[in-house]
């Protein structure tokens, strides 16, 4: 069918830009079903309106209630849709298999989903980033895992989606065909901040990609910058806002609390200092704040962060004392 032309004309209306090889098949099938639907729908509506008008109850008109059965007609409208359905199924299954069978020789990226953050780790040099960077025209393979609940990885521009299930590894592959920045969403409901579990995917040329990875692998020297770097990558950002004073996320905001007394859930008060921050990271339930009883519990980072990293986080949080702009 004339899918390509259609896709070009209406790209702006129905679909986000097509940026992977999957888009061709998905868009083709989508438009095919759309046209099939229209071809069915219009006559149904026309017939309905026509019958409404022509056979409406009015003085001097009496319908003839004989037409109750018409075997050839009934067989036709059973068989014809059946064949169309079989064709749609077939096209869908073929496209699906293409998505399901992962090619060899891929660029590998590990995806860590956690409430409410995405983190990506590149196999090539072990770099990590909260935004997904990809080289153009390569087969990309994602190995995805969730630390807590169900998530789902979705890039509309790639027409690619797969759930991320805790306790399992799920794989997803695609082949980006267009440079640019695209949306990346979580599409499986995962709790309070589900709707902020969004990030970007940036497709780069090969050289730029390599340069980006080399840049990403370097952790910042400055301790506050390192703290922020960790804040964005270790799923702190999903709950704790570092900005707008008092902004209440699922967890307390870091901003403007340093050195002050904060109330705890157990009724006591504690000074917001190095020790308190360290306790909250390693034993969050011990340091739970008042007013967050119904929020999701914070997981412990014991064994996941080195002392030196905790120091960096503390330095970052302390730097927010005066309230800088919220990191985007």
């Amino acid at each position, binding site marked *: 069918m004339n899918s390509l032309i259609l896709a070009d004309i209406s790209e702006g209306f129905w679909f986000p830009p097509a940026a992977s090889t999957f888009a061709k098949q998905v868009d083709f099938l989508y438009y095919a079903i759309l046209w099939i639907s229209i071809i069915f729908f219009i006559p149904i509506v026309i017939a309905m309106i026509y019958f409404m008008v022509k056979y409406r109850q009015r003085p001097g008109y009496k319908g003839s209630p004989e037409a109750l059965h018409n075997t050839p007609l009934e067989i036709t409208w059973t068989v014809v849709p059946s064949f169309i359905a079989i064709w749609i199924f077939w096209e869908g299954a073929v496209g699906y298999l293409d998505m399901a069978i992962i090619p060899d020789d891929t660029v590998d990226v*590990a995806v860590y989903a956690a409430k409410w953050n995405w983190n990506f780790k590149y196999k090539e040099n*072990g770099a990590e980033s909260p935004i997904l960077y990809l080289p153009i025209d390569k087969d990309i393979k994602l*190995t995805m895992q969730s630390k807590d609940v169900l998530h789902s990885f979705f890039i509309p521009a790639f027409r690619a989606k797969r759930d991320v299930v805790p*306790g399992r590894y799920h794989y997803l592959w695609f082949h980006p065909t267009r440079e640019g920045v695209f949306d990346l969403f979580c599409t499986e409901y995962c709790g309070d901040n589900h709707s902020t579990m969004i990030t970007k995917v940036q497709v780069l040329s090969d050289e730029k990609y390599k340069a980006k990875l080399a840049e990403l692998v370097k952790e910042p020297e400055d301790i506050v910058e390192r703290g922020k770097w960790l804040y964005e990558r270790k799923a702190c950002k999903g709950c704790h806002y570092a900005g707008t004073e008092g902004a209440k996320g699922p967890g307390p905001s870091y901003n403007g609390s340093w050195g002050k007394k904060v109330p705890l859930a157990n009724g006591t008060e504690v000074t917001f200092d190095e020790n308190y921050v360290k306790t909250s990271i390693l034993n969050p339930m011990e340091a739970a704040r008042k007013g967050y009883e119904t929020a999701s519990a914070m997981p412990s980072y014991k064994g996941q962060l080195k002392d030196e990293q905790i120091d960096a986080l503390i330095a970052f949080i302390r730097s927010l004392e005066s309230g800088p702009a919220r990191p985007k």
Partner: protein
Amino acid sequence: MKIESPRQQGRHPFPKFQKTMTEVAAPADGHGHDHHDHPSWLAHHFDDAEQQYDSGKLGMWLFLVTEVLFFSGMFCAYVLYRNRNPEVFEFCSAFLNEKLGAINTGVLLFSSLTMAWAVRASQLKQTKILVGMLGATLGCAAMFLGVKSVEYSHKWGIGLLPGRYYVAQVENAPHAETNYLQMLCVIPAILSAVFLLYYVYSLVIASKFHQRVAGPLLVSGLCFFAGVGLGNILEGGEHHDEHGAGSHAHDDAHGHAHADPLVQGVATAEKATVETADEGISFVKTSGGPVNDVAVTKEEEGIPNSKVNNQGMAGLFFSIYYCMTGVHAVHIIGGMLVITWLIVKASREEFHSEYFGPVDNVGLYWHLVDFIWIYLFPLLYLIT
């Protein structure tokens, strides 16, 4: 499925009746038994006994279908989990005392017989036999629960608890000295005391009806304790063996880890999964997730016990065990309540050849409950 309804066999659907003042003024349901040709046991909206009986029977069968489907969810969970972790089932079923299971199977099978006899007795209007047989069924059910109480309390005592609460340290398991059994016996003890008082009262007022009801209730209360005693004898005699069975299971599992290709296959598969996923990526270790449980404990691989004997493995087995047997026990208790209701009705001599649907239907229910046990017993206790 019946194609022809009884009403289509030429009977007149609406027997004539007069609307009387009493009916109009009848409160609430207004379903007064005002039909002259409607006996008291025939509900007003039914035409005849046969239609009422057929309706009840079909309703009960449909209910049984829902019961089977209700249990099938748990059977599915059993199959899926067993398929995933066969070694866990080998390890854990050694902790289930198949002697107690076998006794309980026998008790339930016998109760099915008495129940079937009760149905026959109700058709023949043999009230004494009917009450006796219903009482025997009730007693068997109570005995079943007694044995089950011993089983449960023993397991709780050594920490064989479901999922999150599984704490068994099988090597040095403390023996069941906690009073779980006494706790379980409190309610039956109170009930038995009430039944005893009731029986004495019925003797005092010399009411045949009350004696007929109180007798079976008292006997069933005692049966519970007979079951407890029986269970204790078997479990007590097993005490050393049980411990032996536990450590035996370790040896077994230990051996299997090396010898059994199945277990080994599982282990390799798990390793493989992790390795493919791990290519070049060092994973942040999640807290207590299954991924680590299975994969990371390489140094512990020589001790299959630690692989299986934890909350996610053995604990989950016991979750399934408690859910299945627990829901089954709830059904037994439900059955006991309706049988008690039947005993009351039977003692009033309500049943006869045209009206025995309730006994018949409860009988069907009871057979189904037995039937489910017949599946549970081998699946949980026997298959290794």
